[in-house]
Every structure is written in C-alpha cells, then in structure tokens.
C-alpha cells in the first residue's frame, strides 16, 4: 500500500520541479491526443514548442512572443497576489475588457488632438476602469459577504456585452462605413502603442509587464503588505490576531489585479488589437490564471510561465497553419497543463511512502 505523509513544510525542490514535470506530462498527453486524432505527435509538439523560436519562420513569430506574453504576465502578476491571500479574482477577463474600453475612450474623446499627455492619460484611465470593475466584487464581498468568485465571473459576461454595445453603439467609428468597432488607434499616433524597438515586438505593455514583475516581487518579499497577504493566506486566524484587516486585503488584492488587467486591456486596444470591438476579450484573463499557478504565484515563475504559454499560443497558430490542427487545441493544452500541475502539486505537500503492514 502507498501512504501519503504530510510534510512539515512545503518542499522547495518540488516547488520548482513540479511545473517542469507538468509541462513534460502535458507534452506527452498532448502528443497522445494528437496521435489519436491522426496527426504526427512528435511533429505537432515540435511545431508548438520549438518552431516558433527556432523554426524556419522564427523571425516572424519570435516578436509575437513578447506581444502575447505581456498581457499574460501583467494580469497574472496581479492575480497571484490575491491567490496568495485566498482571494479568488477569476474575472480578470472582464477587468481587461473594461480597461480597454475606458482607456480607449480617452483616446476617442481626444481625437484628433495631439499631445504627449494622451497616451499616459489612456493608461491611467485603463487602470482606473479595471480597478473599478475589480472593486465591485471586492465591495460586495466586504459589505454583504457575496462570493467574489461568482461576482467577478458574472461581471465577465457583463463586460463582454458592454464591449459589444460600445462597438455597435456609442464608440462605433463614424467614418467606418457602418462597420462595428471603434476608430483604429494604430492610425492615431498620439494614442498608439507601437513597437518600441523594431523586430522585438516590445511595446509599452511589455515594459509595464517587466515593471509589474519587479514591483510585485518587491511587494511580496520586502513590503509589510506582502507579508500580511502571505500571512492571511497561510493562517487567516493568526493574521487577524496580528492586526491584518481582511476587508482591506480583499479591496487591495481585487483592486490591484483589476488595475493591472485593465492596463493590459488598454495596451492591447492601443496596440496589437488597435480598436474596441465586440471580440475585445480573447481569453487572456483566463489563461493568466493558469500562468499564475504554473508560475507558483511567484513573480519570476510567472515571468517564465507567461513566456511558455505565449509560446503555446504562437505554436498553436503555427500548427493550425502547417498541420491543420484545430485552433482550440491550444485551449485543451492549457487546460491539461493546469490539471497536471494541480496533480503533481501533491508532491510539494506530501511524502509518498510505502506503508509497512504490521
């Protein structure tokens, strides 16, 4: 018989090893799935994980890595802080959409003015929009005890409809020949979020993601607020006796993750997407949850996990083009990854021993 013995403290070695194991297991299971669907498994895995970086078309796909990784890292950095404290914001997708709309609204209101203040004002408005959307579940939890999981998730569906309303109604491009969608901000230099260094894919969102990684590392390991968050997550009662106010933490964590998701939405609207459309939300807010877990809720881990999941997006697109793999296979891949990760996580908290029969 096998017996699970709880560890005194979580194993640091396994903390690092399990995400790697989970990725390898996902590759194997994904390969088996592709084989079952009649695709060459090794070629499929190579197309997804190797070709975007080193394959024949790498010069095109490599810059895409940062474009896709930036929103994931930005959102996941915020989510991880809440997850550490046991505060589950799973509506980042909604905060991302609202941030894109409020930030984009500033640009549309300023059009066609010119000035260096426009883009920073958009970023601030995007963060404020995401923050406000995140504060709804925070306040409803603090005042009435409503589950922030369900409220934040419901608000994703509301945000999607706000985006559709904006794209078909108030924010529709007046010169767009009746097509839904706002003006294209890429063609409005004062509001655009362009590639900063040609060939790298780096736009302001990438800079923001890098800053977010550093700032959240500082917050969690050097600041008293980070200590409170970690304390509240591991021992809520002890934290309360030590004077940590749970309501403040809920507002802080949901507000911060909302603001970061809102910023990510704005950088997307002003950059790669270019406009506010009804399909503004593309799932970054949900994938970022996987990034946060895969990165072990640690800033450096999130950086690596964000790059890896960005790779699966690009590799998935490549595999769709070259191997006719279904577009949704990336989603399946990401779901499997989270399954394996949660499963292997057992090893960080328990020792597996053979039970000696007495």
């Amino acid at each position, binding site marked *: 018989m096998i017996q699970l013995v709880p560890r005194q403290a979580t194993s640091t070695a396994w903390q690092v090893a399990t995400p790697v194991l989970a990725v390898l297991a996902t590759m194997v299971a994904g390969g088996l799935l592709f084989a079952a669907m009649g695709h060459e498994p090794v070629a499929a895995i190579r197309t997804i994980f190797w070709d975007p970086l080193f394959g024949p078309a790498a010069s095109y796909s490599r810059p895409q890595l940062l474009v896709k990784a930036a929103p994931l890292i930005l959102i996941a950095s915020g989510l991880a802080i809440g997850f550490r404290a046991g505060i589950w914001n799973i509506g980042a997708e909604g905060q991302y959409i609202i941030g894109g709309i409020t930030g984009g609204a500033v640009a549309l209101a300023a059009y066609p003015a010119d000035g260096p203040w426009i883009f920073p004002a958009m970023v601030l408005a995007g963060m404020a929009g995401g923050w406000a959307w995140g504060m709804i579940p925070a306040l409803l939890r603090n005042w009435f005890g409503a589950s922030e999981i369900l409220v934040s998730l419901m608000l994703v569906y509301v945000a999607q409809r706000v985006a559709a309303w904006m794209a078909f109604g108030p924010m529709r491009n007046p010169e767009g020949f009746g097509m839904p969608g706002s003006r294209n901000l890429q063609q409005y230099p004062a509001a655009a979020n362009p590639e900063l260094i040609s060939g790298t894919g780096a736009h302001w969102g990438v800079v923001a993601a890098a800053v977010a990684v550093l700032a959240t590392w500082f917050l969690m390991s050097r600041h008293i607020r980070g200590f409170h968050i970690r304390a509240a997550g591991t021992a809520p009662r002890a934290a309360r006796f030590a004077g940590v106010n749970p309501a403040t933490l809920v507002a802080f964590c949901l507000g911060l993750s909302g603001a970061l998701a809102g910023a990510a939405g704005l950088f997307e609207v002003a950059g790669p997407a270019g406009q506010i459309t009804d399909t503004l939300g593309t799932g970054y807010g949900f994938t970022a949850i996987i990034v946060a877990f895969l990165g072990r809720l640690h800033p450096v881990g999130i950086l690596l996990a964000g790059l890896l999941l960005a790779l699966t997006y690009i590799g998935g697109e490549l595999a769709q083009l070259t191997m006719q793999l*279904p577009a949704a296979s990336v989603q399946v891949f990401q779901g499997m990854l989270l399954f394996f990760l949660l499963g292997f996580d057992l090893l960080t908290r328990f020792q597996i021993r053979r039970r000696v029969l007495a």
Partner: protein
Amino acid sequence: MMIDPLSVFLLLLSAATPILFAALGELVAERAGVLNLGVEGMMITGALAGFAAAHGTGNPFLGFLVAAVAGAAISLLFSALTQLFLANQVASGLALTLFGLGLTAMFGKPFEGVKAPAMPTGPLRINWIVWLGLIMVPLIWWFLNRSRAGLILRGVGENHDAAHALGYDVRLTRVTAVAFGGAMAGVGGAYVSIASVLQWTEGMTAGAGWIALAIVVFSNWTAPGVLAGAWLFGGVTVLQLRLQAAGVQVPVQLLSMAPYLATIIVLVLISARQKFSRRAGGAAPGSLGQNFHALR
C-alpha cells in the same frame, strides 16, 4: 403587447431547466462537502456529447443519456485531482471548466451548422426533460432529508472527520456525489443544445454553469430553494427576451446583461441575509471546499 400568462410560464419553465439540472446536481455535490466550480465545463461537455449522440442516432432521449454519462465521466477528472491528489478545489474546478470549454471547441467543429432532431412534446405541451427536472426536485429533497444514504452524504459534508470516524467512506461518497452532479450538469447542458437552441455552437452554455453555482448559494442548500432560484432566473431571461422582441428602445446588448446582473443582485441579497443572520454562512455544509486526508 398581448402576453398570454400560460405561454410565458411555459417559456419560463424551459429557460429554467438547464440551470435547474445543473444546480440540483451541484447541490448534492456541495451537501457532500465538495465545491465543484467545473459546472460550466461539465455542462458544455454534456451539450456537445448529447448533441452529437442525438444527431447521430436521431433520438434526442439517447442524446440526454449520453450527455449524463459524459458529464459524469469528465467530473471524474475533478474527483481524481481533489480526492486522490488532494488538490485545491477552487483551482481544480476552474481547470475542469477551462478544459471542458477547450475540449468541446476542438471536437465540436464538425457539428457546427447541423440541426438537432425534433423533441417530442410531453403532457401539457411541456417536453419530457422539463418534467424530469421538476420531478428531480422532490426526489432530491427526499433523498437528502429522508433517506439513509442522504443522511450519510450530509454527514460527510458537515464534518468529514466525524463521518470517517464512524466508518463511512468519505472519498467514495464524494466521488459519487460529484459524478451525480456531473451527470445532472451534462443533462442541463444537453437541454441547451438539443431542446433549446437546437444546434451546437462553441461556448453555448454562456455562463449557465456559473449561474447554477450562484443559485445553490441562493437556495441556502435546499432543493426547493434551487427550484425557486432557477425559476427566478428563467423569469428574468424570458422577460428580457420579451422586451427585445417588443422592440424596447434599449440596446440588445444591455438587455442581454439582465440574467448576469440579476444573478449578482440575488447573490448579494442572499449573502447579506446569511451574513447578518444567526448562523454565519447560512446553511452551507461545514466541510464545504475542504479536502479530506485520513491520517489513520
């Protein structure tokens, strides 16, 4: 605008059915102490599997049967993670939802644009699955409150250590309850694809699974409460569709927010009542969301 109350009620019954099935299933799982946030993933799995079977065989009832099996089968992934590998239930449920949405998007492509076989209407112009949902309410109430198995299930949910000490198999009870929840969610999802929309589209359950989770809270963990919540939701949906059809001067996108906003409002009202009542957290099972690990 003429509104025939009977036809509105029939529409309400139909709109409430997917949520009713999913919420009843989740109710049983939560009473056993398991918080499964994968309802949306199990519903969408049932929606596709049921639609595929109904389309393939031409028999809608076979579709619902397959949907129940598929929902229960995919719930085993969640059970394996939480009961065997002792993973966090919130994260595992989310994983199930994300995986289910991805899996169905991948395998659903060939079924896009195909029509479902016709559903025969049952007694009183109400289709058989709606009837089945209504019958499940007293059945589940009876099971939870009057049967011996239901008592054990509630015991496991209230205090898993005590139930274990009495010699009951906590894990087996929970896996079974979650599988039942999966089967019910699968049927609820299949109702959307087979009986309501009559075709398959990606992500077509559109948050119904999450609304079902909110309704379990609203019900204060009772079967009649789930029925009330599902009807309330059905009423809001029908009202919203009626207003759209009547050409009210409000953008369609804003009207279609109604079910989600109503869910939030209801959740807030009920949470406030539970928060300020004598027993904090309402009638939520004592061990809800906690994993069980027997040291002896």
